[in-house]
């Protein structure tokens, strides 16, 4: 048998039909659904009298729109259009008989946190969702990617996607990470190196000692941002940490089925002599705590650097860099650590898991945030929130001056009331620093949870190593 990559193996195990031109129907094991990108798809089914083919493999949760403040179970406490979308998901979930975690359920949260948490996401699966950060689930060695609403409807109706295979890229992070350097710094540094279009046409497999050393939470952070590098999906081969994470989760297999699953999962790795279309290697030791300065996730610099000038770039990026500098209100040559901030947001499908909250609490313990700063922590799910309360993290955050919110996407994309005001500057653990992403004319600097906590203490971009 010819050697295969992990991606090749998962792909081959899911081809339900292949046409002569190589167009495949890829079978989908898990379809995650949220309220923003699904109403038109369900409406399409209704108009054509189609059913959901596999309701038992379809899981819905409202996350993008939901307020993160108390009283949100009452639709009156949502804006009218948000309430309509959430109500539409309620109705569609009931009518089509799919699994559903309503806002009132303690298990509700960001779809990409709920899926793994409930054991829906397992190694070797194909997972899709009408959301680009579906890449997150690749941390389990599942082929997971975002789709548009037409494709949501296609998967609902047929449990397949029309696909052509992507190319294979290996991103190897060798050696150990230095203290203060996290999964977020890895994934941002990779994008800083390859650019936001560097992964276009590829599925990335992340490997190497520094990746193996990461917890499942850290691996989810890395894969989450594969999309920001342009890749269709990011993958990490499953190992003991993966199995341990999955074992005992509500929808993970049990008993003999667990053993059978485990036996297959152990075959899910890239063969030594598999073909790679592109290989990128980064030394773990060379990765610093990083921050984004501009309005593209590729605008990454070590926290010790200075704001660049447009002249530092080439081609179309010169104009884009100047536009970013103007938008961000930054002067070239300014040390990044001199940049003062207004808001700190810790949360999102990138960094809203328990380990992220522990990392922030570690920095904040017994300290107070800078006067006048707005700081909020939005746990990724109701269960993450409950665990953080049990571990005493919530008390640390509240005593430090953070708002302790309910679960949702929140200020990552600001579809709910959590938004930046015009000109406000935010240090955020989310995934996109696009213009207007966190609010009209809001300014976003992407960082790790530790770096966000450090910035909350000083009121400016801060090297986490100074407060560790």
């Amino acid at each position, binding site marked *: 048998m010819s050697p295969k990559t992990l991606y090749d193996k998962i792909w081959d195990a899911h081809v339900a*039909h292949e046409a002569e031109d190589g167009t495949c129907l890829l079978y989908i094991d898990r379809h995650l659904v949220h309220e923003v990108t699904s109403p*038109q798809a369900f409406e399409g089914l209704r108009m054509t009298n189609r059913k959901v083919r596999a309701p038992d493999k379809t899981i819905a949760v409202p996350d993008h729109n939901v307020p993160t403040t108390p009283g949100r179970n009452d639709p009156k406490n949502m804006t009218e259009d948000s309430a309509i979308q959430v109500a539409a998901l309620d109705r569609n979930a009931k009518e089509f008989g799919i699994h559903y975690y309503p806002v009132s359920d303690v298990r509700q949260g960001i779809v990409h946190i709920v899926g793994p948490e409930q054991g829906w996401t397992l190694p070797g699966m194909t997972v899709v969702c009408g959301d680009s950060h579906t890449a997150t689930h690749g941390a389990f060695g599942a082929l997971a990617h975002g789709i548009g609403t037409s494709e949501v409807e*296609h998967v609902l109706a047929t449990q*397949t996607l029309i696909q052509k295979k992507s190319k294979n890229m290996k991103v190897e992070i060798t050696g150990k990470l230095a203290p203060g350097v996290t999964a977020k710094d890895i994934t941002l540094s990779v994008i800083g190196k390859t650019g936001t279009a560097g992964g276009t046409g590829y599925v990335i497999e992340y490997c190497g000692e520094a990746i193996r050393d990461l917890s499942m939470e850290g691996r989810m952070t890395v894969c989450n941002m594969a999309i920001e590098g342009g890749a269709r999906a990011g993958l990490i081969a499953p190992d003991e940490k993966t199995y341990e994470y999955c074992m005992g989760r509500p929808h*993970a297999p049990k008993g003999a089925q667990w053993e059978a699953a485990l036996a297959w999962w152990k075959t899910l790795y890239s063969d030594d002599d598999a073909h790679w279309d592109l290989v990128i290697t980064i030394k773990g030791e060379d990765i610093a705590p990083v921050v984004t300065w501009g309005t593209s996730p590729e605008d990454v610099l070590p926290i010790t650097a200075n704001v660049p000038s447009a002249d530092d770039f080439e081609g179309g990026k010169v104009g884009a860099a100047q536009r970013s500098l103007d938008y961000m209100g930054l002067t070239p040559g300014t040390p990044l650590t001199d940049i003062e901030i207004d808001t700190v947001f810790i949360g999102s499908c990138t960094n809203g898991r328990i380990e992220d909250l522990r990392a922030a609490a570690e920095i904040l313990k017994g300290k107070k945030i800078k006067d006048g700063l707005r700081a909020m922590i939005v746990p990724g799910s109701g269960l993450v929130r409950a665990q953080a309360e049990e571990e005493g993290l919530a008390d640390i955050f509240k005593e430090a001056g953070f708002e302790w919110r309910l679960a949702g996407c929140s200020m990552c994309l600001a579809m709910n009331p959590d938004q930046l005001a015009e000109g406000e500057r935010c240090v955020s653990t989310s995934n996109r620093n696009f213009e207007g992403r966190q609010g009209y004319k809001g300014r976003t600097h992407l960082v790790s949870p530790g770096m966000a906590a450090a910035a909350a203490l000083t009121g400016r971009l801060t090297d986490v190593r100074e407060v560790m």
Partner: protein
Amino acid sequence: MDKFETLTGIAAPMPLVNIDTDMIIPKQFLKTIKRSGLGANLFDEMRFDRQGNEIPDFVLNQDAYRSAEIIVAGDNFGCGSSREHAPWAIKDFGIRCVISTSFADIFYNNCFKNGILPIVLPEEAVDLLMKDAEKGANARMTIDLEAQTVTASDGETFSFDVDPFRKRCLIEGLDDIGLTMEKAASIDTFEAQASQARPWV
């Protein structure tokens, strides 16, 4: 789905690289449960100030480009979110074709589901077409999907690649779901085999 065969129209130049889905349609317009009506908010934050007045510098606010049907864009157009609201807004505005050196994967897929043709061309070709587009309303480009060509206003022609299956779907206006349902027997067979091999799924 609307067919796409040929198109002759005005092309708007948008040389900025990494035009993302938040620029194409900001999130406040995602709170709709319909596919229609988003053209009014296409490129909203670049196109209008907070009072809803047009920003005169923005290309689609200039008289020469108000009825543009083509966009010539900088690298990596459509990066970011999976929101199909982006192609819905583009289509609703009246744009049927976007030309760039590269597109983000999900956006690219979404275009084909909505009768929009995204064309990838080498940098030199995009640069020439960008200059052509900058000539304004007198510069009408022609796209011929069957022949896989873009013809600039001066007659210069560029060939592009497109996946044969997607090309057929666009030219014939085919419904993906209907096509896949014709293969239901293959899906049934696969599902039965997979549930034996991986019963835990």
